[in-house]
């Protein structure tokens, strides 16, 4: 019996190593590419650059005449932080309301949101662009924040699932104590929903870091670009710079993940179970 357990553990770990390798290798390759001395991926022996240097990172932050990476980074951070805050508020409000209250339009609303999310999003981009022109918000980072946070409530299902698990009796007790609904939301629900708050904030923070279609449409000035847009415009021979820029986007997200991973798994689990 014990021997069987041991061999099972060995096999499991071998599989784990294999899986981790599959996930890690392309990332590692990207990291190595960012340290390549020549800057191009075609001076490699197979996967590995012929020589290494820190030059790319230096260039990334100092050579800003054409590719102003530091200000792209600032822009992205600005957009990510504000749309993270706004999206989280909107999603949590939506999810809580859809889970806790029963009203006539509820099921139709739920069905409508589902159907709306089926629409191929880039087909609506022209309209978003025209709306922003009418609002005079082209070349303004707030236009991005607006669109990101306005669209966020469409993805409320996971959060709603989480709130579905909070027992009604808690609310009824509070109700009997005379608390009004806003008070209940603030004093009772909020403290209970830390994990899902973290999950929501994290995912909505990560989205602006990788989206390039919308900012490309709404931001015309080069110094207003976000990192993702800027990277797609890098010259074709600048692969190292591309890789280095990509690594820098990944770092804050990974750090956030680790510092919050405890909350996160709890959050997702409680949410998903009862969707």
């Amino acid at each position, binding site marked *: 019996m014990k021997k069987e357990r041991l061999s099972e553990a060995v096999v499991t770990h071998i599989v784990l190593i294999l899986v981790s390798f599959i996930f890690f290798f392309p990332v590692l390759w990207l990291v190595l590419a960012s340290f390549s001395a020549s800057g191009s991926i075609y001076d490699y022996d197979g996967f590995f650059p012929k020589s290494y240097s820190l030059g790319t990172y230096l260039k990334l932050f100092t050579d800003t005449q054409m590719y102003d990476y530091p200000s792209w980074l600032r822009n992205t951070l600005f957009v990510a932080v504000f749309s993270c805050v706004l999206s989280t508020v909107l999603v949590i409000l939506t999810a809580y309301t859809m889970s806790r209250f029963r009203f006539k339009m509820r099921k139709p609303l739920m069905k409508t949101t589902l159907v709306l999310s089926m629409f191929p999003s880039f087909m609506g981009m022209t309209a978003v662009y025209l709306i922003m022109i009418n609002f005079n918000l082209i070349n303004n980072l707030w236009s991005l924040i607006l669109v990101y946070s306005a669209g966020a409530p469409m993805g409320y299902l996971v959060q709603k699932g989480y709130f579905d698990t909070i027992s009604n009796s808690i609310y009824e007790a509070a109700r009997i104590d005379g608390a009004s609904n806003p008070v209940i939301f603030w004093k009772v629900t909020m403290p209970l929903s830390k994990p899902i708050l973290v999950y929501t904030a994290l995912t909505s923070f990560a989205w602006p870091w990788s989206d390039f279609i919308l900012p490309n449409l709404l931001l015309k000035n080069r110094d207003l670009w976000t990192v993702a847009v800027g990277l797609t*415009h890098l*010259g074709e021979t600048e692969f190292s710079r591309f890789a280095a820029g990509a690594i820098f986007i990944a770092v804050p997200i990974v750090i956030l993940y680790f510092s919050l991973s405890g909350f996160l798994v709890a959050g997702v689990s409680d949410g998903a179970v009862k969707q």
Partner: protein
Amino acid sequence: MKGLKNAFALLLISSLGVCMTACGSDNAKAAADSANGEVITLRILENDTAKQEGYLDELLSAFNEAYKDKGIQAVDANMEEYSNLAENGPYGYGPDVLYQANDKLMAYAEDKHILALNRDDFECASLIPEEAWDAFTIAVDGKQYTCAIPVNVQEPMLFYRKDKLPEDWESQWDEDGDKTPDFLQNWNSLYQYSQQIVETSDGQNYGLVASCKDLYMMAQFDFSYGGYVFGKDENGLTNAEDVGFGKGDAAKGMLGLRQFAGLMNEECIDDSISQNRYAKVADGTYFCSISTPDTYVLFHDRLADVYKAEGSSDEEADQKATENLGMVELPRKMPADGDLSKKGDTVDTVVMGGVNGYGISAYTEHREACIEFVNFATSKEMIKRRAEILGVAPTRSDVAQEMGGTTSMIFESLNAGHISLMPSVKAVDQIWDPMGTLLSDVAKDAFREKKGETVKYADEASMQEALDKASKSIYDAIYTLSN
């Protein structure tokens, strides 16, 4: 729920208010600008290379210095080099003056997004050949208009390392004794030389390796044999209904391409070569490759890196790279029957080219100032600086003659009809993908043969059929869905 909708209504109404005030303030600002005669600011869109190499800065500061008293100021539009004027211009986000290739500019001209200009307003007009002007001419309601000012000509060039020429080239590869290696003058010879390199290096090194899927680089295998992009109607205007890639003996030429692809490696089929050509020519793996003149800097820098790795100092490496990097026009002669392996009758090579120029946005509020700027930017001095810094070939004959060398060669080719310019119509957008697919299929076919798989283009008939099919699909893309 009703309350919910109330709320929705309120938001819509308030947002509309925002919208209207926003639009209002925009118009008001523009009106104020032109009224009280303050400094006029022009937004100039240049290409990335001009920016990177510092030419744009030089141009702008020279202009601003010269026009300080006249109250005109030019600034960098600070936008992406291919940003779409049709999308930005009408709403006030576009540049005032833009520098782009003729196909792009004239696509704007078709919808009147750039202004029609009077040639006589420009001092350079008489020095520019008709061929270049043609690229910027459009017919509207039966009348012809010029919509942009030509600045320089682009065509694919052959890049190679002079220090990698065979030592005995003068005795072995210069039959006509004109002190230029035959393989830079004649495609047959280039083919033979490539074959020799592949054979002697046991497949480690190659002669010419170029992007076979890139129509711009490979059009000579079609155009030299009578093919063309779009035909002309009786008035000499581009007629996009006549797609001509399969006309004349184009099929023969395409078989030549297939033949040459067999001497390259598979990297010529996908995007690999367009990115690694700089490094591979520099390290000598490939003897030469095809690219546009504006990529000269990239070849040069990569070559300097190679010399540095061999132990040269920075300065020395830079000098050596300048000395040894050859950039010449594609070989002038192609075999008349398309068969590169044996010598026989030849035809003149006709490559695809483009003319870049300045256009003025139809949405600018300062037409006169823009004309002043374009005049300044196309002055002899500035065009010369442009050619020196960027290595491009100007359309101004005086500068071309003064510069000499490759620059004047390109200029002459344009005059002699060796360069077939991209048609200046919107429909050009729709040729690249279908032709790119066909070209990469033709190149791939050479490797199918090597691997013993079924080949698709063994003879002229099947090649012709494929060309006709591609032309048909381009026609369909342009016309089937238009109303």
